[in-house]
């Protein structure tokens, strides 16, 4: 890390945003040489992760990092300020980018996809936007890069170019752009009109605002304007986005894009409204129950889906609302649980998507009903799937346990038993739609003539993909046993102030 001490701390933020863009340009230049192109992507991803690690280190040492680009309007600039919540999200996204790139190399080649250069290019641009969202210092910056993220992922969703991809892309862009322009922009501008500032500040910026009904409206506008959080009824884009190649679904639609949504909601809750003030806003409860309803309804829908990616998509919709619920419960512990869920759900869900993609590449199977007995052929993949599934359900010894634990405690602390009940029912639903898949894969009845199992039967996906899904499933385990670094980071968030401790 000594190398990095020559770089000014505030410069690191610029680097985190610019490095993926440079990588994107380089990989276009290397477009005709797939091996070189993929090396560039991997190197960029690795470099980005080290930068984020240094930023994390600085955050623990309380080094202030902020930078301003240009003033878009008098008094309003594109500003980046590092704070712990953003660092957490950046860590998750940049680490999983490395793994996903590895996975994508296997997947894209195994699947013989066209336009791979465009794919990796847009991917890098999307990551750059995510980094900018992570470190955005005010709502305007957040909004600008939120829109860029939507636009840069659109070509990824429609990558296949088929009729279905077009239709999915239209829903994707339609819902995300419309909600952000009609609601989020209005919310941002309303905040600007009411408070005269858009900066994210510890404790929020609306403390002096008397007009509670206006704040109530703003909160609803924020919740629905941040369409990437997929609160019902604006969740349709997420299942629609599943027409994208699996690496996209894995990183973007299980991690980067959707987490950018819930991250924005958390950020608004903590830094714009402030956790204390949020409690007094009348619509906070309304949105809380809508979030809870989303958890249950989309879990129920997930059960009816035979297409594995669609099932996972609805599962994601449901899990995202955990975080929304956590943010709106307006207690420090719940908010901490929500923040932790960003990380734990990310590793769990990306594992599941990796597995879904691996099955598609190796055996060309998309539907759950065709996967019985698959454990014989793809034992590693299906084991990883089981691990990811248990983490999503929230059972020990997987990472998901912790976030669900804190969310539950937060709900109890807020005296909202109904939320506790919701979370528990949701866990049961998760068991119902996720666990049968690995169980049937391993324990489905074999034809009586079947030979005893041997390694010769195994037909896994290409090696890079298998490595990727092994790493993330190991991550699910690791985060159960060693969650302390993340917990420490979350404890630094103003408003949470060390509310959770004594883990691990």
């Amino acid at each position, binding site marked *: 890390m000594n190398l990095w001490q020559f770089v000014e701390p505030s410069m690191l933020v610029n680097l985190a945003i610019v490095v993926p863009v440079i990588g994107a340009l380089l990989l276009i230049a290397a477009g005709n040489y797939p091996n070189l192109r993929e090396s560039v992507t991997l190197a960029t991803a690795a470099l980005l992760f080290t930068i984020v690690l240094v930023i994390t280190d600085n955050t623990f040492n309380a080094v202030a990092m902020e930078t301003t680009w240009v003033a878009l309007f008098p008094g309003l600039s594109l500003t980046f300020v590092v704070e712990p919540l953003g660092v957490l999200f950046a860590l998750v996204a940049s680490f999983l980018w490395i793994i996903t790139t590895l996975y994508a190399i296997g997947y894209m080649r195994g699947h013989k996809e066209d336009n791979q250069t465009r794919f990796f290019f847009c991917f890098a641009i999307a990551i750059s936007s995510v980094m900018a969202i992570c470190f955005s210092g005010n709502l305007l910056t957040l909004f600008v890069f939120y829109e860029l993220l939507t636009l840069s992922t659109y070509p990824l969703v429609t990558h296949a170019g088929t009729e279905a991809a077009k239709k999915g892309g239209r829903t994707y862009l*339609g819902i995300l752009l419309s909600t952000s322009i009609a609601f989020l922009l*209005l919310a941002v501008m*309303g905040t600007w*009109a009411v408070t005269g500032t858009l900066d994210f500040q510890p404790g929020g910026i609306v403390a002096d605002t008397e007009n509670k009904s206006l704040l109530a409206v703003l909160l609803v506008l924020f919740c629905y304007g941040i369409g990437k959080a997929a609160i019902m009824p604006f969740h349709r884009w997420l299942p629609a986005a599943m027409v994208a190649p699996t690496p996209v679904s894995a990183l973007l639609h299980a991690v980067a894009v959707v987490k950018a949504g819930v991250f924005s909601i958390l950020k608004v809750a903590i830094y714009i409204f402030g956790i204390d003030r949020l409690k007094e806003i009348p619509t906070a409860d309304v949105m809380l129950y809508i979030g809870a309803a989303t958890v249950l309804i989309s879990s129920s829908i997930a059960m009816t889906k035979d297409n594995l990616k669609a099932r996972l998509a609805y599962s994601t919709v449901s899990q995202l609302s955990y975080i929304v619920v956590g943010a709106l419960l307006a207690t420090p512990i719940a908010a901490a649980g929500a923040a932790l869920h960003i990380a734990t759900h990310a590793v769990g869900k990306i594992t599941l998507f990796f597995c879904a993609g691996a099955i598609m590449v190796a055996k060309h199977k998309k539907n759950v009903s065709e996967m019985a007995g698959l454990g014989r052929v793809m034992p590693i993949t299906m084991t990883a799937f089981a691990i990811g599934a248990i983490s999503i359900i929230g059972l020990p010894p997987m990472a998901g346990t912790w976030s669900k634990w804190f969310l539950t405690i937060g709900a109890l602390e807020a005296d909202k038993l109904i939320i506790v009940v919701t979370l528990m029912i949701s866990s049961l639903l998760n068991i119902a739609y996720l666990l049968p898949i690995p169980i049937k894969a391993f324990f489905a009845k074999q034809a009586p003539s079947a030979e005893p199992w041997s390694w010769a039967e195994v037909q896994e996906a290409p090696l890079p993909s298998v490595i990727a899904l092994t790493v993330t499933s190991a991550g699910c385990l690791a985060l159960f046993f060693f969650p302390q670094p993340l917990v420490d980071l979350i404890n630094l968030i103003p408003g949470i102030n060390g509310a959770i401790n004594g883990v691990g």
Partner: protein
Amino acid sequence: MLEQHLPALAILLPLIAAPIVFILGRSTVVWLLATFTGAWASIVAFQLLLTTLAEGAIHYSLGGWSAPWGIELTVDALNAFVLLAVTGVSTMVLVYSKESIAKEIDKAKHGFYYTAYLLAMAGLSGILITGDAFNLFVFLEISSLATYTLVSLASDRRCLTAAFRYLIMGTIGATFILIGVGLLYMKTGTLNMLDLAERIAAFDRSRTINTGLAFIVVGVSIKLALFPLHRWLPPAYTYAPSAVSSFLASTATKVAVYVLIRFIFTIFGPDYVFYDMGMDMVFMFLAIVAIFKCSYMAAVQNNVKTILAFSSVAQVGYMVLGISLVTTTGLMAGLIHIFNHALMKSALFMAVGAVFYRVGSVEVHAFKGMGKQMPFTMAAFTIAGLSIIGVPLTAGFVSKWYLVSAALQQNLWVIAVLILLGSLLAIVYIGRIVEAAYFHDVPEGRDASKLKEAPLLMLIPMWVMVLANLYFGIDTSLTTEAVGHASEWLFQSTELLEVAQ
């Protein structure tokens, strides 16, 4: 020495070049001369803007005859700013014209084209910087006659009926303005704008002045295609040569909006127009209807030029809406949008012209597969389209931001919501074209190998406009400063007048 004559130069350059061009008549030479003139005029406009921002308004007496006898040219931040947009965009369209009209206009008529173009430019510049109400009418007629000619030059015969329709409506508009100015003259005995302002303020609610206002507002509204007086515009833009559509869409209606602002704020005074006569409600209502009705119309058309034409009418709605909010920020929003819309619409029409150049059609289905065949053109179209939608980091976002801010300042949340909903419709009409370009293959029967990228002389001006869209979406210091000055000054001048009374 030339320095002090800059205001006159802005008009004279194109005015003198026009007959020379007519005499020379040779296509390439003429193109060079016209472009050079345009570029020079833009530099003059830029200098004027810098001077006015630094030193305040410039008053210039034509021929040394001082007002009220002579004609006075008055340059302030407002018209210098619009002049910069008009001359700058016109010059880029001139560069673009060479290849474009080679395809769309008979070779024999190229001389006419450049002559009429320069005359239109001279007329528009004249409207912008004159300080005399009657003189404004004269320049209006010069530019209008020239634009009727321009529209009728296309090789598609339907342009003739479109031009005729435009001519009839345009003449009615001009006549109304003339009647209005005549009424004002009858009552006040002066044509100089500043004198007019003073004397009108003295006649409180005179019926003659009310009538004059009515004639002028209706006349100008025809010229700027305010809903429901916009019916002449879509056919004119559709059937005119692409270069002409690009020129008209980004200059003619914008100048008309300027005229509206000038009459309301400088001559009649906002208090009289908005509070006494209640015009703000009229404008606001018509603007909102324009935004929705015409965005909807744009969404259901099949001819891309018609789509853009209806979109222009909708965008004029945004400008008028800004004006109707009667605040400094609202006026700023309207003015910024004049500038920004010129940038985006010219780029869009240039891209459409480039597609016509290769495909020979501007129907939506002609755009199918163009994303692969003409990547630079379609990328330009997409970015300019995003600017129309108002995506951040494009010029369109800046306009929208100010407009919504202005509405929220007045606590008009409903208007703010309507503005944002209106921009959703833009997603539909731009999205259809972009989708055709990127998600369809070239239709059968069309030889894909012949559909290559547009010539460089079309691409360069197109991309200059696109980059300008991005630049003014990120660095807003020039636009906001100029516009801030202009609108503050417009409001202040009326207040000063009141104080003087």
